[in-house]
Structure formats: structure tokens, C-alpha cells
């Protein structure tokens, strides 16, 4: 298709159009385009440019159609492809945009701007081989700009060509030698070079390079701490990879000096002590009787540092017996006198050693006894507060160890002593939560909040506790005290990507059976992580230009793994479970639809309205761009980004009716199998989707992986039985090659000759005292069509022994799921057993508890701040 040629003066006009667009003179540009099109209505490039301008002016659909039309007229124009790429990029379709840029380069291979954007997109999409080529071309065009050299070095490194990267860096350093000794970018470049040497395994050259640029000797590496940290790491690697004893001694000495320097700069760095000891052959995590004394001695060397707490705390970890006793007493005295609220969190890791745990308990009890019996406190005595903090510590201690009653009693004494310290109520909240009383816990946390309404930390905790107690609306009211005025808390916290909130809210909806609203929240989490991916876009160019290379390349790695974040994994697993439930029970989706005639469930209706309102407020520009088409002045630049689409399903009611639940579940799981291969929940989630999609090999692979991680896991037991049962009840056997491989794989998990009944009873015999194993056994019995009363009585065996509350709760939920006739019986038995817990109350009682919170004067008036600390 030959484009219609423009006459000379019209070419000039087209050049005007381009520069008008560059300068965002949009109205002018549109007029110019119209002028050209009048004469050449088939001119593709002009059509594309006009389309692009229209998109900027808010006429997105019209503009895009015009661009498409223009492209059809002139497929060999780099301008057309470039315009199209810009539009794809604005929609975050990076892979597609890159393809268009590559097309554009076919017709104009030395176009600098297109090359530069191509490089950015190749980095964004991790196509490093192409990136190296593009960076090479950029350098060829602008060889005198050092950023293009840096860009090429980075491209080589990302593509794994470390030797080439090193060569380029040496070259740059050669012509930068005259920048003077004080240049932050040069310093960063040197550090980057050292890191590449390290990655190449050339530790000796890396150390030499660091030393030759040592700032203490007038060198150019300006960040001495980062430089020294790198040096000690390299020396450790040298020691590891080399057998020569004499050299090892020399390296040890050099490293020792470097660690000491680092500790002189920051005596609170745990990692520094770890390395300092490791350099002397002591593994801080596994100190032995042989090296214990030496380790303590090295730590004691830093005791005279008045400010640092790390050496004393680490000594507690290392010391045993009498030594520990001698160290813990002054440590506790100091912290209790100062009233350090984090003391318990600080000590908790020591509890892995039960002797230390007991010593701590005894020591604090001693304090308490001393203070409690001493004469009534006089005005200037510091003892009352020390006594209070000792009570506070003891309460946390007992609560952590499951002695709920004891913890609560101590807190009562403490609160009677000082009724104004929020920490005491916060601890009470936590103790109640652990005892299984989420409602009392929320109330206690709110009591803390009322004492210091200016503190966002307590506010957040209160909201979270309310969500745990199933009070979504009340939680929103609390959260909104710190979110932007006027917007509902949910909208603001979504925008702020508040993971703690999104996860809790999703879970809260899910527990309440509002699967539609839960799904909506979990999808917001997915969106948040998608936006992390987009966020990095602007760094590809910026970091190279500013020579910020070490952090930048770390950031790329982090971006690649960001979805391994536990919050994302949690949301993925929950989402998959909901989709699977919707698939398994086709009536579930419809049952979530609001019953128009019998609007009996007022509270859920309220929640729905709230979601509706939130969605409306969240999208102020909803259906803006398109509907305003006719009325807009059409001169304003709205940018290329598409307007946010109005959410026409804010409550997720259509979502839960989706016809492809398994495909949607599968999509949420994309890549997680490789990203977190050790995660059992992900194995199970992938299995649950795969088996239903009849992807048997994928399904069995996941169970084999889970088997290698924990072969006795209850959820695995259930799924192995499920797999065998599903495959053996297929109407026709699966043909080769899949069939035999599958059979063999299943047999590796469960030998063919073992019947499911036997498999299931053997499992129970092995785990008679594990409630979750009993539940798994019952579920398999259900697969095997055991009668309800038999399944019920298996589950009731859980009550024979004292077990954890959440396990009993899981049994109760399962009984409810099965609609067992013995639900009430089980509930009452649990309710009697856990006297502090409200989890096993009847639905009416729980509703009353929630209502009583609302009525107990949860007043919007906040208390006065007690103390505002930094």
C-alpha cells in the first residue's frame, strides 16, 4: 500500500503538525491535521497523528479508531507504528507496545526517541537480549554521552554478559578519571563495577578494586559503610573458596579490622555482630559449648557502648545457665525502669529455650513481689511505674503461653493501678483474642483507642480487631478517622495500597459468607501488585541517567519476586478457594444475589449500599471522558492514559456468577508455582483448580511436590484420596501417554494395592490426637460415602483431648458445612470447654455481642492524646 505522497509545502505542514503535538498545542495540531486531510484524505500518518491528538483531547474511542484506520493506510510508516505503540503503552500493554516499536524501527532504524523507548520497554518486559542490542544502537548514535555507556553496561549485566559489562565499565572509568575525587555518581559506578566482579566470582579483583578506591586513602568510593560491608562480604567469600591457611589468616585479620570499623559506626547492627563472630568461626545462630565463652567475650567488648542495646541482647542469646541469669537481671531492670513497651517482643525469641523462659518468668515475678510488698509509693519514687511495667510484661508472658486467665487477672491489677495507659488495654485485647473472644478483644482495643485518639497505630489495630470480630461497618468508622476527609475509609485505604486492611477486610467478608464482597477485595490486592509492576517503568531511564545502579538492579529483582509477598499469596489462595466453591456448588453464586422481595438481612444490605457508595466516590471521573464528549471544550490535554472505567459491579454480584470460575482462579495463580515452590498452600490451590479442569498431570505434580515438603499434611491426605477417587471413577481410562504416567505418579503417593479405606484408617491411626488430621480423615470418609453419623462420630473424637481453640472451630465449621444434625451439640460442648471464648456462642448471642459494641457508646469523640511521641 503506497502512501499518498505529500507535496513539498504539505510536507512542511506535516512537520508543523509533529512539532505542535510535541509542544502539546493540541487544538492547533488538530486544525493542521484537518488541513492536510482535506487535501489528502488517505494520508495514514496524518490520520494517526490526528487520532493521537483526539485521544489527548478526551475523545479516546474516536481517536483510537482513527489511528487504526491510519495504520491500515500506511503500514510501512514508523510514525504510524510509533503512535500505535504510544497508545498501547498508555494502556500498560507493554509487550504489545514493544512489538509496535520494533516494527517502527524496521522503517527507521536510527530513530533515537524510538530506540530509547524501546530500551525502556525491553527492560520493563525483561527482554534483555534485545535490550543489549538497542542500548548498543543508542550508544552508536550518541557515543559522547556517558549515560549511553552506562546503559549498555547495565544491559549486558542484565543479560548475563558480565565480562562485556566489565569491559564497558573499565572503559568509562578510563575517560572519567579526571572527574575529581568527589563525585557521587562515579563512586556509585565503582561500587557497581565491584559488584559485577563479585558476581563473576573474581573476589580477589573485587577486594583489590575496593581497596584501591578506599576513601580513607583518598579514593573515590564515598560511601564507606557500603564499601566496607561489601569488603567483608568479599573477604568471607575468599576464605570460603580458598584452602591456603596462611592467606586465610591474613584475610581474617583484614576482615576483623573492617568489622570493628563497621561496629564503631553502628553498634546496633545485628548483622555486623553476626559477621564479626563468623569471621572468627563462630556461628551466632548455633553457638556451641566450645566457642560460647569466646563469643560472649567478643560481645562484651561492646558493652561499654552506652547507647547500643544489640550486644547485650545478643549476649542473652548466647549465654546459658548462671551467665544468663547474671545478664538478664540488669537487662530487665533497665528496661522496666525505663518503661520500654517492646520488652516482651524483644525477649520472646529467647523462649525457644524453656530454661531461659523460666528464668525470665522467675526474675520478673521476683521484681513484682518486691514492688508489691514495699511500702506505699511516695511521690518521687520511680517504683510504681517499674511495678506497672513488670505487670505489663508478665501479662504478655502468660498470654503468649496460653495462660489467658492469669494474663487477664494481672492486667486487671495493672489497670486498677494506672487506668490511663493504653498499652494495658491493647494487651488485654490481645489476650482476649488469644482466648477466643474477638468481641471482647475489639472492645478492649477500642478502650485503648479512646485513651489516645490521636494515635493512628491504635486506631488501625482497633479497626483490625473489629474486622476480626465481623464488624465491618464499625471498622470502617474507626479507620475513617485517619483517612482523607470525605472519602470512605475503604476507598482511601485501597488507594494507599494498605495491605493489612485489604487482607483483613477480604477475610472478614469471607468469614461472613459474603463471597462476592470478599472476592472484590482480593482482586483489589491483585490490582495493587499489578501497579507495583507499573511503578518501575519510570526508573529504567532515570536510574541509568543518574547512575543509580546498585539499588536499581536490586529493584528489578525485587519486582520480579514481589508477588511472593505473603499478603499476595494469602489473597491468591483465598480467591482460588472461593472460585472453587462457586464451581463446585452452582447454586452458591445465585444464592449470594440480593433477594429483592425479602430484604430481611439488613446488615448485609447495608454493606452492599456501602460498597456501592464507595465505588461511586472512588471514581469521581467515572464515565467522564466519554459522556462529556459533546460538552467538553475539547482543548484540554487529558493525557494518554485511559480514564478509569466505572465499576459496574461494585458488589461483585456479577462476578460470582462468572461462567469461567476455574479459568479465573488459574489466572490469579499465574507464575506462583515457580515463584514460591515451597509453599504448600499454593500447591493445594493449583491442585484444586487443575483437577477440576481435568489437567491431571499438573494436579498430581503438585501433590508430589507437597508430598516432598510434608508427606503427612492433613490437606495432602485429603487430596491424595480425592485424586485417586476422581481418576478411578472416570467413565473411561485416560489414554497414553498421559494415562500410564498419571497412574505411576499416583502410585508413588499411594500404592495401587492399598485401598482408600485402608489408606484413610491408617492415617487416622497415625494421628489420633491431631484434630486437623481427624478432619481430613472425616472428609475422606465422606468421599468414600460413609454415613453421616459415622463421619460425625469421628469428628466428635476431637473432644476427647484438650486441643487448640481454632482447631475445634475448624471442626465446627466443617460440621456446619455438612449440615450435620449434631452441630449444636458440638458447639455447646466447645462453648463449655473454652469459657473465655465467644467463638462458640450461638448466632443470636454473637449478634448481641456485636450489637452491644455499637451501643456501648462507641462515641466518635476521641480521648485526649496522652503523649505524642515522635
Amino acid at each position, binding site marked *: 500500500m503506497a502512501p499518498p505522497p505529500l507535496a513539498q509545502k504539505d510536507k512542511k505542514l506535516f512537520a508543523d503538525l509533529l512539532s505542535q503535538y510535541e509542544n502539546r498545542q493540541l487544538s492547533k495540531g488538530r486544525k493542521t491535521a484537518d488541513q492536510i486531510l482535506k487535501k489528502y484524505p488517505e494520508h495514514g500518518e496524518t490520520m494517526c497523528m490526528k487520532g493521537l491528538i483526539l485521544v489527548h483531547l478526551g475523545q479516546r474511542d474516536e481517536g483510537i479508531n482513527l489511528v487504526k484506520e491510519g495504520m491500515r493506510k500506511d503500514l510501512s510508516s514508523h510514525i504510524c507504528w510509533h503512535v500505535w505503540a504510544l497508545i498501547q503503552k498508555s494502556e500498560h500493554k507493554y509487550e504489545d507496545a514493544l512489538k509496535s516499536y520494533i516494527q517502527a524501527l524496521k522503517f527507521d532504524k536510527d530513530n533515537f526517541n524510538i530506540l530509547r523507548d524501546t530500551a525502556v520497554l525491553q527492560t520493563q518486559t525483561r527482554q534483555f537480549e534485545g535490550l543489549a542490542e538497542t542500548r548498543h544502537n543508542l550508544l552508536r548514535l550518541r557515543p559522547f*554521552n556517558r*549515560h549511553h555507556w552506562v546503559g549498555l553496561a547495565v544491559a549486558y549485566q542484565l543479560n548475563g554478559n558480565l565480562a562485556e559489562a566489565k569491559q564497558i565499565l573499565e572503559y568509562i572509568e578510563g575517560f572519567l578519571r579526571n572527574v575529581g575525587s*568527589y563525585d557521587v555518581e562515579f*563512586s556509585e559506578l565503582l561500587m557497581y563495577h565491584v559488584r559485577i566482579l563479585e558476581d563473576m566470582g573474581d573476589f580477589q579483583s573485587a577486594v583489590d578494586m575496593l581497596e584501591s578506591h578506599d576513601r580513607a586513602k583518598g579514593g573515590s568510593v*564515598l*560511601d*564507606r*559503610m*557500603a564499601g566496607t560491608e561489601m569488603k567483608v562480604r568479599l573477604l568471607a567469600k575468599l576464605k570460603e573458596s580458598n584452602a591456603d591457611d596462611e592467606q586465610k589468616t591474613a584475610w581474617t585479620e583484614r576482615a576483623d579490622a573492617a568489622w570493628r570499623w563497621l561496629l564503631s*559506626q*553502628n553498634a*546496633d*547492627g*545485628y*548483622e555486623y555482630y553476626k559477621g564479626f563472630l563468623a569471621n572468627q568461626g563462630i556461628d551466632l545462630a548455633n553457638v556451641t559449648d566450645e566457642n560460647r565463652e569466646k563469643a560472649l567475650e567478643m560481645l562484651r567488648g561492646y558493652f561499654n557502648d552506652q547507647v547500643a*542495646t*544489640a550486644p547485650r541482647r545478643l549476649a542473652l542469646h548466647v549465654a546459658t545457665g548462671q551467665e544468663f541469669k547474671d545478664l538478664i537481671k540488669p537487662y530487665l531492670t533497665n528496661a522496666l525502669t*525505663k*518503661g*520500654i*513497651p*517492646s520488652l516482651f*517482643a*524483644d525477649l520472646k*525469641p529467647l523462649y525457644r529455650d524453656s530454661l531461659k523462659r523460666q528464668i525470665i518468668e522467675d526474675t520478673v515475678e521476683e521484681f513484682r513481689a518486691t514492688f508489691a510488698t514495699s511500702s506505699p509509693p511516695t511521690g518521687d519514687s520511680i517504683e510504681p511505674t517499674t511495678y506497672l511495667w513488670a505487670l505489663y510484661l508478665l501479662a504478655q508472658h502468660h498470654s503468649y503461653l496460653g495462660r489467658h486467665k492469669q494474663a487477664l487477672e494481672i492486667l486487671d491489677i495493672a489497670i486498677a493501678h494506672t487506668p490511663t495507659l493504653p*498499652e494495658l488495654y491493647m494487651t488485654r485485647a490481645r489476650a482476649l483474642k488469644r482466648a477466643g473472644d474477638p468481641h471482647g478483644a475489639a472492645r478492649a482495643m477500642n478502650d485503648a483507642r479512646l485513651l489516645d485518639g490521636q494515635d*493512628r*497505630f491504635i486506631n*488501625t489495630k482497633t479497626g483490625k480487631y473489629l474486622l476480626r470480630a465481623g464488624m465491618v461497618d464499625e471498622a470502617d468508622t474507626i479507620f475513617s478517622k*485517619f483517612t482523607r476527609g470525605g472519602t470512605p475509609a475503604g476507598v*482511601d*485505604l485501597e*488507594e*494507599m*495500597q494498605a*495491605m*493489612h486492611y485489604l*487482607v483483613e477486610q477480604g477475610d472478614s467478608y469471607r468469614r461472613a459468607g459474603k463471597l462476592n464482597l470478599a472476592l472484590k477485595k482480593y482482586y483489589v490486592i491483585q490490582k495493587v501488585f499489578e*501497579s*507495583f509492576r507499573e*511503578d*518501575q517503568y519510570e*526508573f529504567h531511564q*532515570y*536510574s541509568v541517567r*543518574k547512575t*543509580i545502579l*546498585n*539499588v536499581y538492579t*536490586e*529493584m528489578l*529483582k*525485587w519486582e520480579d519476586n514481589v508477588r511472593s*509477598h*505473603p499478603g499476595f499469596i*494469602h489473597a491468591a489462595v483465598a480467591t482460588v478457594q472461593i472460585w472453587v466453591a462457586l464451581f463446585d456448588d452452582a447454586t452458591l453464586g445465585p444464592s449470594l444475589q440480593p433477594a429483592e422481595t425479602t430484604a430481611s438481612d439488613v446488615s448485609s444490605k447495608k454493606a452492599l449500599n456501602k460498597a456501592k457508595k464507595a465505588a461511586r466516590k472512588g471514581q469521581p471521573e467515572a464515565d467522564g471522558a466519554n459522556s462529556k464528549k459533546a460538552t467538553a471544550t475539547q482543548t484540554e490535554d487529558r493525557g494518554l492514559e485511559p480514564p478509569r472505567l466505572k465499576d459496574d459491579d461494585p458488589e461483585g454480584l456479577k462476578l460470582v456468577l462468572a461462567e469461567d470460575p476455574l479459568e479465573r482462579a488459574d489466572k490469579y495463580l499465574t507464575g506462583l508455582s515457580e515463584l514460591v515452590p515451597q509453599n504448600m498452600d499454593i500447591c493445594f490451590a493449583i491442585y484444586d483448580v487443575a483437577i477440576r479442569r481435568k489437567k491431571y498431570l499438573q494436579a498430581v505434580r503438585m501433590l508430589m511436590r507437597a508430598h516432598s515438603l510434608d508427606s503427612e499434611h492433613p490437606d495432602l491426605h485429603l487430596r491424595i484420596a480425592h485424586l485417586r477417587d476422581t481418576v478411578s471413577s472416570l467413565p473411561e481410562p485416560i489414554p497414553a501417554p498421559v494415562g500410564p504416567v498419571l497412574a505411576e505418579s499416583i502410585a508413588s503417593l499411594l500404592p495401587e494395592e492399598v485401598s482408600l479405606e485402608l489408606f484413610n484408617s491408617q492415617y487416622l491411626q497415625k494421628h489420633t490426637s491431631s484434630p486437623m488430621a481427624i478432619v481430613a480423615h472425616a472428609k475422606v470418609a465422606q468421599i468414600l460415602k460413609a454415613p453421616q453419623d459415622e463421619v460425625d462420630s469421628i469428628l466428635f473424637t476431637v473432644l476427647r483431648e484438650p486441643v487448640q481453640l481454632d482447631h475445634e472451630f475448624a471442626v465446627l465449621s466443617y460440621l456446619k458445612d455438612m449440615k450435620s444434625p449434631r452441630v449444636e451439640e458440638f458447639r455447646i460442648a466447645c462453648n463449655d470447654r473454652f469459657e473465655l471464648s465467644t467463638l462458640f456462642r450461638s448466632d443470636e448471642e454473637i449478634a448481641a455481642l456485636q450489637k452491644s459494641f455499637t451501643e456501648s457508646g462507641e462515641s466518635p469523640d476521641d480521648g485526649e492524646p496522652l*503523649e*505524642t*511521641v*515522635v
Partner: protein
Amino acid sequence: MNIRAVRVEDLAGMQDCNLHNLPENYTMKYCSRLSPHFIQTAKIDRIPRPDLYHALSLAFTFAKMEEQEEPEGQPATNHVPHGHVTSISVMRSYRRLGLAKKLMLQSQEAMSSIYRAAFVSLHVRKSNRAALSLYRDTLGFTVNNIEEKYYADGEDAYAMQLTFEH
């Protein structure tokens, strides 16, 4: 508590710490935009447990070197390098340990020695007496002026500054 330099993978935890503690909110994008500049600033954490949703960032400073406007390829003129503390946050349950002071000192040291900053500036809420006392009495900042309605909620800020000696 462990004090160390910030790493990229801390971003999520730091954002979380911020949302828990401060009335001002920062999105991840904002956090990551600062990241090139906070390489040298310090952060405090506890060794996180794998079963927690969020890595534990107990406290951190966001401090950065103020950038000069610099067209590509051209040297900047008349720019006095100086630092600015954007945000400092300590989890409520980890207060009274002197963490804020320790973090500020680490961050000031980096600004002064690596970037040769002439001074560091910050803003503090007029009502925040404890913070004011930390900056003024402990760290030696002086109040430059009052910026009216500096905060989104209408509160005034003290603009404070500390000059470094080189």
C-alpha cells in the same frame, strides 16, 4: 533492635509501618521514587517471622538529597547540596528505645559525609512537642520559620534546619 541500611525489599514493610503510624500516607510508588536516595539511610527491624503478612519495619527514616533541576547532559549551577527528611516513623510499640535519634544520626552522617550536604531540613507539626524536642534539644536543629497550613489538615509546621560542619 537491629539497625541497618534500607534495602529495596524493605519497601512493602516500610509503607506498612508508615500507614500504621502516621497521618500522612505514601503509596508504594512514592516510596519507591525515594528509594534511590535513601540508600544510605537507616532502618530498624526485628527478624521477621515467615507467617506474618508484613515484614516488620519497626522504624525508618525517609531522607533524601534534594535534587537539582538539571537538563540532560548539562551541569547544574548554583546548587547547594542539602538533605531533607521526608518522614520518620516509629511503631508505637517500639517507642522509648531512642530509635528515632539513632536513625536520624545515621541518616545525617550519610548526608554529610557521602553527599557533602551543607545542611539538612525537615518539617514538624507545631503540636508535636516530643518531636520538636528531639530535633531541637537532642539533635541541634534550629527553627527557621513557621510554614502556615503546611499539613493537609491545616496544621502549621516548623521548618527546621541543621547545618553540617565539614
